[in-house]
């Protein structure tokens, strides 16, 4: 189990008049090597949740276990350096992530901190940059003079350069163009499948992560209201849409309509246009596949 939350609560500005509760009694488990996605409306506590993964925020109640590290409200804090090496966190806003005056320095900051030599760190920097689709000409530039999307990519690269085992990204696709968004989702999926990384992504655009994700988490008002596989998400999407204002993508709604119409509720959902088209064709040809009740046609 890579990440386990046991009744975790968190409040900003604890013990002051401005106390603001952001997480309440959140329990969750994520296996090593999963591709998880967190959805939920604005202010539902997604970013707060993510910042617990590498101990940037410490729970004010309950217990967080990440890899072999245990973070608790009470008790002494274990040194977190090793945790930070193994868990990379991309903050929601790239301006929150970058602080050096050149892209290269920023990319090398992590690797150098974790005891790598300068040459190797540079090597890593340019590799990470290539992964996110930027070339070496960006290395000497000032990260704050980049476009929003480029800054975002550099922020992601700065975490990839550390080669962490768990990668948590807070809305990484916001401010990216559609092509870069798809590329990024593909890259994350590749890192997960080929290198066995655990990937956790916060997203407001569920459709772009849909093909890759194996565990969905839905947050509402600081609590976890759903955790399950994509098929379970599809089944409960109606409730989640009503109760949590979740922006359920059209492909799920459409599938649910088709499923209800033809009695396919217990099948694996077809969430891409191609798959759905094939399924409809099979229906029309009179092969209900699995489910006996024949639909109209």
């Amino acid at each position: 189990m890579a990440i386990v939350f046991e009744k975790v609560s968190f409040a900003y500005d604890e013990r002051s008049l401005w106390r603001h509760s952001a997480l309440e009694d959140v329990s969750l488990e994520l296996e090593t090597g999963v591709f998880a996605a967190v959805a939920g409306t604005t202010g539902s506590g997604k970013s707060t949740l993510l910042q617990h993964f590498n101990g940037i925020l410490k729970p004010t109640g309950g217990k967080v276990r990440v890899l072999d590290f245990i973070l608790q409200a009470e008790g002494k804090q274990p040194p977190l350096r090793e945790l930070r090496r193994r868990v990379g966190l991309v903050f929601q806003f790239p301006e929150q992530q970058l602080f050096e005056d050149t892209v290269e320095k920023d990319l090398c900051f992590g690797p150098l901190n974790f005891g790598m030599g300068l040459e190797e760190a540079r090597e890593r920097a340019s590799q990470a940059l290539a992964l996110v689709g930027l070339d070496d000409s960006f290395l000497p530039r000032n990260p704050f003079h980049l476009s929003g999307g480029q800054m975002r990519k550099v922020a992601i690269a700065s975490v990839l350069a550390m080669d962490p085992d768990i990668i948590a990204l807070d809305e990484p696709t916001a401010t990216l163009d559609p092509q870069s968004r798809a590329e990024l989702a593909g890259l994350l999926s590749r890192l997960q499948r080929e290198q066995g990384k655990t990937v956790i992504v916060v997203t407001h655009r569920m459709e772009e992560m849909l093909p890759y994700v194996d565990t969905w988490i839905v947050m509402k008002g600081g609590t976890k209201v759903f955790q399950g596989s994509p098929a379970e998400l599809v089944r409960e999407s109606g409730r989640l849409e009503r109760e949590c204002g979740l922006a359920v993508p059209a492909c799920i709604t459409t599938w649910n309509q088709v499923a209800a119409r033809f009695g396919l509720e217990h099948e694996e959902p077809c969430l891409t246009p191609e798959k759905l088209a094939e399924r409809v064709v099979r229906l029309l040809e009179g092969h209900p596949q699995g489910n006996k009740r024949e639909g109209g046609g």
Partner: protein
Amino acid sequence: MRNKLLFGRSIDTGSWVHGVDPRAKLTGMVLYLVAIVIVGSWPALGIAAAFSLAYMTATRIPLKYFAKAAKPLWVLMVFIFAVQCITVKQGEELWRLGSWALYTGGLSSGLIAASRMALLVSFTAILTFTTTPGLLNQGLAGVLAPLRRIGISAQRLTLMMSIALRFIPTILDETHKILKAQAARGADLKEMPWKEKGKMLVSLLVPVTVSAFRRAEELVLSMESRGYVIGAPRSEYHLLSWRLRDTCFVLSYVVLVAVVLSFRWI
């Protein structure tokens, strides 16, 4: 980090002190400052303390917040105390260390000086706790308005002040953000030995200054894009109105100054 900094945050409890005209509060605070400067004996200090406590309770803000407001200045208070103890040579000798001796007079005036400082800081916190920055500015503009006669624009001054005040929490937030980003990549200030910590804090100066400038530029753009022109006539959202209560408020401070003064000469 930010939650430790109480200065400059208002706490709304809806007490009558919150409703006092900001100009009256500012005038009151200046009078209080005068009173505190004049205080030189224990009875006078006692009266000033009782006066302060009465007002602090009236705000209905827990007293511990006032204590917290004074806390960052304890080094200064200790320093003032020590200087008084070392330099004042009146009263009986209490303790001798080589050629230097501690006298009762020194101890007493050291304590008074330190308490004055604590009172001043925690009491002026009333002003920031009970007044939102916007109102405070308006009050300030009101108090400074007469300066126009000698060619100084109160609006310009208060704009400068309000931006400066507004930037303190922003810069702290910015610092906090950078610290967070660095911690996330393995450089956690809390886990460093002291020497490293010092180096790290120094290396923070550059990005923090740079980001402060970036924020300032953004602020200018955002003000200009909303048509802000300095010196242009502006209407106010809240109009300040001076009432009897405000006069009484200021008068209470005049009385305090008078009482404290009388102790000086009696």
